[in-house]
């Protein structure tokens, strides 16, 4: 199903398109700005963008779905990214994931029903010295105690 974008969103898309349209190779920067504004890059927005920047929608969609960072559906408000790299794995990343999953009652890759949290696992985020690590909306929480990490992190962000 394709729904129309609201006038507000339209305006933003036009602004972003105008800024980048004539710079070669800027599709990814465009998508970064769109996702920053909307939280995701849904199908209807891709269709709209295709017209605005004059790039086939297939090209936009293949890029959106190739990169992990771009999402076609809005995730929960707080994005909890559990690092499952080698160092974090050694220091109990799977228990951290389990603990968060239990606390929120959702599985990896899901958002909570109230859309407050999104739980995902990610590759090494380059803070291995602080393993195990969870990144929340880009901020690093390191040296976690695997068993109690779920309660502690969720309590810190719930309602914020």
């Amino acid at each position, binding site marked *: 199903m394709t729904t129309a974008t609201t006038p507000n969103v339209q305006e933003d898309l036009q602004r972003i398109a105008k800024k980048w349209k004539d710079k*070669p*190779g*800027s*599709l*990814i*920067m465009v*998508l*970064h700005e769109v996702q920053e504004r909307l939280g995701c890059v849904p199908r209807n927005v891709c269709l709209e963008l295709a017209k605005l920047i004059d790039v086939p929608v297939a*090209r936009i969609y*293949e*890029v959106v779905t*190739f*990169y*992990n*960072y*771009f999402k076609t559906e809005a995730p929960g408000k707080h994005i909890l990214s559990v690092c*499952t*790299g*080698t*160092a974090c*794995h*050694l220091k109990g990343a799977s228990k951290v994931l389990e603990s968060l999953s239990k606390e929120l009652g959702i599985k990896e890759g899901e958002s909570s029903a109230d859309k407050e949290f999104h739980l995902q696992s990610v*590759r*090494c*985020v*380059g*803070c*291995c*010295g*602080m*393993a195990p690590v969870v*990144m929340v909306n*880009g901020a690093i929480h390191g040296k976690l105690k695997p068993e109690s990490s779920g309660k502690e992190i969720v309590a810190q962000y719930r309602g914020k």
Partner: protein
Amino acid sequence: MPHPTHWKGKELPNVLRRLFDVPGGHRLAVARQHGAYSTIGATLFDKSPFELIELVKDSGLRGRGGAGFPTGMKWSFVPRGTGKPVYLVINADEGEPGTFKDRLLMARDPHLLIEGMICTGWALGVRTAYIYVRGEMLPQIQALNHAIREAYDAGLLGENIAGSRYSLDIYVHRGAGAYICGEETALINSLEGYKGQPRLKPPFPAVSGAFANPTCVNNVETIMAVPWILTHGAKAYRRWGTDKSPGSKLFSIAGDIGRPGVYEIPLGMPMPEFFELAGGVVGELQGCIPGGSSAPVLNAEECAKAAMDYESLAGLKSMLGSGAVMPFNATRDPVAILRTLTRFYAHESCGQCTPCREGTGYAHRVLDQVAEGKGRDGDIDHVRDLADQFEWTTICPLATADAWPIKSFTGKFRPAFDAYLAKNPDRAKPRELTQLEPGAFM
């Protein structure tokens, strides 16, 4: 913890870490007090590009992004005077699991990267340069953009740098979360706004790279060593390291180690000594992944013999790679470690080569079964056989980077894998493909 300055009575190299412990060192005024941009002037512009390339060749500097290719030689492959623009692209995608040196360099000393880029740009005749930064590294992107603005304001970027006839512009490009974009040709595709899928080589980027123009791709750490070499000379750089692996290198060490972190040490330091410098192994050493997750694992015996240089690790059939060192102790389960690694590669395969897309996913799913106690007798040999098939048979080395840990872990820690197989009472039954859930496209 501040970076140690001495080790066993000797001063540790200080090519890259000069601002690691200086508050505010990312700002131009502070960086300048520590010598930033001292090469930008007569030191650089009185040298011809050719002389600078020769100097870097003489220093023996090698690429710090993983492959260790001699930097001066790479530069000499970039054609000149073809009428086409030459691009310099800095690889700041740092995604090799366990590696966290470039992120520290860019946060603490972004001006050294800019200075290195000006030097490199001069050597190669570059007018426009890009820094491709891993998407998750927001603080680094901010630090770089801020430093670039400061450099423009101070006349160190843009038209006629420091009054010379040389001009350079630098743009920061933000990645979007794909490990494969660290591979130089995938990075170029991504920079052009496409899916980050590697290109078949040749043509090499030096001949046909970004927007089909000659392009030099270098790692952050490689380029940041250039100003020091220009200031102090090739011979001074060679006072550290070995004949074939000269100079200093940053190592990121984590895992079962006393003081995890980033250390600048002379290449060639014995591995046990490096462990000692980083606070010692916690517990009894079982093995170590010496150069990022793609590097074949070493067992404790091999660690005792290894030194931190390209040749020593290659001699042990492993590699120095990106310099990510991950020792693990006897309480760790090699099966679980390999399972995590293969999951990573299966997930990050870009999907364009069948052996990689299908092979890494299949190997991972079989190892999942093994780790869950549902392994079958032939599983380990089967996975090893598969690894043999996708090693070096694909467009880029990602599939090979999966084959190496598979072969080294199952080879060196086989009893641990067999112990898992023994847990399954049905292990003698042949493996049925239908037992495996599809999951290549994770």
